[in-house]
């Protein structure tokens, strides 16, 4: 593994380039880079893989596309890319469907699976084939290989590539046409910790260039670090979409531990806080008012061993939403103690 990409390819804006420059560059690349999915539905036999899905990915944002296995993420991305025909609905990039894009590779870069390579082709040959198809100069293949740190393996046959190298080659292919929009399906699959770290840098690099990135992933911590927005899917349906700030609203949790917390529980209930009791006796209170909780403990003479504010965790939100353990109403501060407290409740 090598260091995260730091050098932009020729023709690409340097990270930190002024917004006006980026906007001009967006125009040069063609279109604003907005992805719109509208009432998209796909039915396989009797199964509705995607069910009336609608969301928008804003230009210049990094959007996490999240959901458990079988949620319909890959089917949605494939419909967006014209590989799967929707039963109904629309999926567009720059206002048109993928097949109608005049220069698809120069508009959208997509990496869908890590094994779409002819085993007898080298990484360089693989990329040059698609350079030729897109009318790009062959040297562009060398440039993107350097960007993803695969120059040393450029002339190695892809059958000898590790999973991490395959992922990088897939990512290199997305950059061939220097597209404004990137669509990546589970790019962290099979990557080792160093590869994950590299991927994080790669995302930052792309985000820094103002590209529109839609990334489906189970590596939620990685997505949370780089994403501005998230679209959460379950069983083909939209569960929640918005900026991370919107999603995190009302989800702040204060954790309290101590040998005898019952007086504090009663005081919190009286003050209108809600929360849960963990199996180990810890209280999880749905509030970011940590000072208020600490003051109540002090005024009621409760000994505390731990008092901390738990930061927003996309992974926790993801699981709570997709496993049905958390209804939207549960996320806000409401309810009365002790009824609001459940043994081993929401995680």
């Amino acid at each position, binding site marked *: 593994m090598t260091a995260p990409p730091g050098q932009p390819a020729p023709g690409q804006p340097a990270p930190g380039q002024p917004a006006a420059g980026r906007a001009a560059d967006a125009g040069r690349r063609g279109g604003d880079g907005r992805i719109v999915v509208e009432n998209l539905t796909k039915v396989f036999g009797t199964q509705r893989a995607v069910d009336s899905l609608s969301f928008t990915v804003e230009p210049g944002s990094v959007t996490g596309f999240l959901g458990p296995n079988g949620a319909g993420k890959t*089917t949605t991305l*494939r419909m967006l890319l014209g590989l799967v025909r929707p039963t109904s609905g629309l999926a567009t990039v720059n206002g048109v469907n993928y097949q109608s894009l005049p220069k*698809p590779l120069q508009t959208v870069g997509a990496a869908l699976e890590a094994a779409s390579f002819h085993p007898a*082709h080298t990484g360089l040959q693989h990329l040059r*084939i*698609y350079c030729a198809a897109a*009318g790009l100069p062959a040297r562009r293949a060398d440039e993107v290989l350097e960007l993803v740190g695969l120059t040393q393996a450029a002339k190695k046959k892809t059958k000898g590539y590790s999973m991490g190298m395959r992922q990088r080659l897939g990512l290199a*292919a997305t950059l061939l046409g220097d597209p404004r929009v990137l669509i990546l399906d589970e790019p962290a699959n099979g990557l080792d910790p160093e590869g994950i770290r590299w991927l994080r840098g790669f995302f930052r690099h792309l985000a820094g260039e103002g590209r529109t990135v839609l990334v489906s992933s189970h590596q939620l911590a990685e997505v949370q670090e780089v994403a501005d927005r998230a679209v959460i899917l379950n069983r083909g349906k939209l569960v929640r979409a918005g900026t991370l700030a919107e999603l995190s609203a009302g989800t702040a949790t204060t954790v309290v531990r101590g040998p005898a917390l019952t007086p504090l529980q009663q005081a919190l209930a009286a003050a209108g806080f809600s929360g849960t009791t963990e199996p180990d006796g810890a209280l999880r209170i749905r509030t970011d008012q940590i000072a208020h909780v600490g003051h109540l403990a002090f005024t009621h003479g409760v000994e505390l061993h731990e008092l901390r504010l738990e930061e927003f965790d996309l992974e926790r939100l993801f699981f709570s939403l997709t496993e049905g353990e958390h209804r939207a109403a549960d996320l806000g501060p409401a309810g009365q103690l002790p009824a609001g407290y459940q043994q081993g409740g929401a995680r």
Partner: protein
Amino acid sequence: MINLIRSEVLKIRSTQVWFWMLLLAGAFTALGSAGTSYNAVQDYRAGNPVDYYSLFTQSSGAAVALLVLGLLGLTTEFRHKTITPTLLATPNRWLLLAGKAASYAVFAIVYAVFCVALNFAIAIIWLSAENVPLDYGHGVPGGVGKAFLTLVLTGMFGLGLGALLRNQAAAMVFGIVYFFVLGPLLSVIPGVRKGYAWTPGGAIQAFNSNGVTDGLADDVHLLAPLAGGLLFVAWSLALLLIGGRISLGRDIS
């Protein structure tokens, strides 16, 4: 379209399959040439007329290699899942099919030139060494042109068959079994053989014939050469279009 053809040609050139197929085509051609040259020498020595037409136009062995090359055109994409990046680069599926057909035609032309030239060279050297006079009449020039076209069309037929069947192993087995077993069987089974002339095998046999239909039953009437050639073109186009509609019309998931 030019970019697409460049890309498809690069795909073929980037593996060694094209080279091994060329060797195979050369080997089959050489074997066929040796057989027809040997027969020509024997006929000459026995005082029988020499079949110069067959000597200079035999191409059935090389056609197998072209058929296999064509079969690989689309089936390889599905086998290795490269159909996904291919369609991302060229989302218009009919344009992709047309690009593949054009690219494989380019390769088939190279193969055909090589095989026809090799056949000519072996026949001329063999007959000259045996002091058999060479005669380029008897419809040989036209026959050579038809042999050349047959090889190119066989590549297209293979591409169409591959598009229709999609599974590489199934397409290879079916293509080879059809041309070597099923096709010849259709020409001899009573009741069925009357329709042989309309099959791809019957069409290509008619196209390549010089009016001689040795080995066929009396009730098998091949089409005229031009009609046979047109029918084989129609078969190849039909396979390409139906295969394209079925294989490329499906969801790529």
